[in-house]
């Protein structure tokens, strides 16, 4: 370990922590020590972790505020569901179908990211935030118009712009089934997502993002964040590196979306609204901009928290908000930081940074 670079060492600690957490949870789950409520949340936690980590690439590493991250999740979720459901007959193995769905989800979301990135990344600061927000909403509205079914002849897709079309307009053959029913969303989805798949997805996104950040391209991306003019002056291609970060982020969000979509038998496009984008942004900000490990912890804790607060009954979300404020205050409080510094030895803290 001595001759490893400091950053590499840090990355390995992150991987190791995630692997250990996975092993611990699996062992405890097998031993029956976990509640159903917690087990049921494992897959969404994995999805939100990947969402937070990927958004951190855009917001923390690239330094551009994106408010439309849920839009990419939505694209990934619905394309993943279509892929998994239409291949139901052709590929009986659910694991293989899940892998294909995640790849398809990532690919479609990546393409959407590229399409949106070309015009959007020319903007800066607040303008970029507003336009990504709009794109997130547009994606939601488009998916609301989508009606998809599958029968022995293959996929049937119509685009219900007038709002007057229904599943019957697909004119499917006998035995055909609807996958997405417009506003009613994807219903009757076979739930094939698993915690193991979620863990693998987290590991893949970590490898991709951490390696990207430590690479030459990653340094170029961070240079753009820190000082765009200086970066340009040394010959860094602004559009190329911005697109690289943005599309990677979108594709990973798409894979997370596909996993999320295949975990519930019903999924509505309205689930991926502005609030979900903000929720993921909160994970990133609370975990620390640019801090991948922080994003993972924040996403996991803040997903479990509302469920743990169920004993507060009606005051649940109020307490949740207060806890958020407390964490914000606490992490920025000099006295608390000083207190932590006294308790935790300096060497340990340096490694954790």
């Amino acid at each position, binding site marked *: 370990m001595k001759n490893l670079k400091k950053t590499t060492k840090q990355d390995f600690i992150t991987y190791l922590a995630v692997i250990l957490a996975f092993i611990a949870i699996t062992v405890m789950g097998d031993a029956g020590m976990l509640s159903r409520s917690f087990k049921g949340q494992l897959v969404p936690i994995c999805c939100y972790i990947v969402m937070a980590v990927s958004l951190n690439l855009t917001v923390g590493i690239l330094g551009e505020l994106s408010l439309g991250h849920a839009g990419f999740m939505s694209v990934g979720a619905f394309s993943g569901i279509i892929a998994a459901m239409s291949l139901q007959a052709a590929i009986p193995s659910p694991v293989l179908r899940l892998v294909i769905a995640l790849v398809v989800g990532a690919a479609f979301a990546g393409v959407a990211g590229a399409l949106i990135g070309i015009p959007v990344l020319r903007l800066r600061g607040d303008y970029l935030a507003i336009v990504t927000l709009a794109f997130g909403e547009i994606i939601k509205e488009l998916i609301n118009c989508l009606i998809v079914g599958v029968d022995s002849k293959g996929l049937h897709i119509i685009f219900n712009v007038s709002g007057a079309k229904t599943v019957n307009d697909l004119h499917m053959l006998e035995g055909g089934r609807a996958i997405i029913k417009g506003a009613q969303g994807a*219903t009757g989805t076979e739930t094939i997502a698993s915690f193991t798949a979620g863990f693998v997805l987290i590991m893949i996104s970590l490898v991709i993002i951490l390696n990207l950040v430590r690479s030459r391209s990653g340094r170029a991306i961070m240079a753009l964040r820190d000082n765009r003019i200086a970066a340009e002056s040394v010959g860094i291609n602004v559009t190329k590196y911005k697109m690289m970060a943005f599309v990677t982020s979108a594709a990973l969000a798409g894979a997370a979306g596909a996993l999320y979509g295949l975990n519930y038998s019903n999924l*509505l496009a309205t689930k991926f609204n502005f609030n979900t984008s903000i929720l993921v942004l909160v994970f990133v900000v609370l975990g620390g901009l640019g801090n991948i490990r922080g994003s993972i912890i924040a996403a996991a804790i803040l997903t479990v928290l509302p469920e743990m607060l*169920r004993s507060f009954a009606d005051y649940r979300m109020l307490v949740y908000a207060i806890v958020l404020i407390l964490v914000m205050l606490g992490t920025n409080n000099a006295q608390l930081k000083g207190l932590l510094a006294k308790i935790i030895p300096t060497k340990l803290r340096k490694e954790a940074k």
Partner: protein
Amino acid sequence: MKKFIALVMVVAMVMSMAACGASESSAPAASSGDAAAATFKLGSTGPITGDAAIYGQAVMNACQIAVDEINAAGGINGYQVEFKFEDDVADGETAVNAYNTLMDWGMQALIGTVTSGACISVSSKVYEDRVFALTPSASSTDVTAGKDNMFQLCFADPNQGSGSAVYMSANMADAKIAVIYRNDDAYSQGIRDTFVTEAASLGLDVVYEGTFTADTATDFSVQLTAAQAAGADLVFLPIYYQPASVILSQADAMGYAPTFFGVDGMDGILTMEGFDASLAEGVMLLTPFSADAEDELTKNFVAEYQKRHGETPNQFAADGYDCIYAMKQALEAANCTPDMSVEELCDALIAQFTSMSFNGLTGTDMTWGTNGEVSKMPTAVVIENGVYVTAE
């Protein structure tokens, strides 16, 4: 230092909140816990916060009334009943979490879920776990499709849409109809689809269709002006009460006074906070329950509900109340005991529900098909002087 004090105060606030939260939720558990060791544990999930909160609260309150009545009268087969309600904000993910929380608690049968979208997500879990579920109000056909242990106490969406069309063709055959619906909502779109199909086959004249989404549910002047311009004298609103209240206010402000016709989502409009209930005068809606019915059962329920919660119960409350009593009837007929496993209870209840006939607040001689859908008669009511009156 100031910040530190603020921090301490916030902590204190959370603690006090925890105290009242805990005391509130432990109160009903304590009262039923000391009765007998073995109890039937029934659970339910629905939105008690957020946009659709009125539905969840109505179901929760009414179920609690029914459970208290049953316990006071000696329970089911001599066993007391415990009831627990969890909030799901009408969201699929939260609903599944709430369901899992209830399963951790030891729930033996589910009364729920209250809203359609959330219920579809929960219903697939229910099917996997072999837990018997009876939803008071999730009306989508996807809720019951392909699941033998999932039953509905309310009408399925297609029945509401076609039921409305049949009623209109029988009573208002030459009306010019406008439909305003929310096209990003499963419930609204589902009813609109079956309504329009049925209306076309019955020869009804649909002159205008307007849509809105969750984000545009604050202004309906465009849709109302278009409906007025198209000459519509009957506006069909297969939507929830919240946007409907905005439509009624805006139509009133622009002096447009057609007959408004709603379905069960319209129920709850009279008790909505901040809405002038006089604007709802003359609104018609299709509902299986009206609080002014003269039978003994309804009168007692309405009186008890008013006593406890200070408002007239809506159809969702009646559905919830009926769910508990239907469950009681089935459990008694099958001679179930709380020590039976969840699977055994599920099989026994399926056998009972598909063969029994139930009389409740929301209808008499209700029966269930093997597909889980209920058959009962809807009645049209009209709002007069702030109460539902059965339309002739």
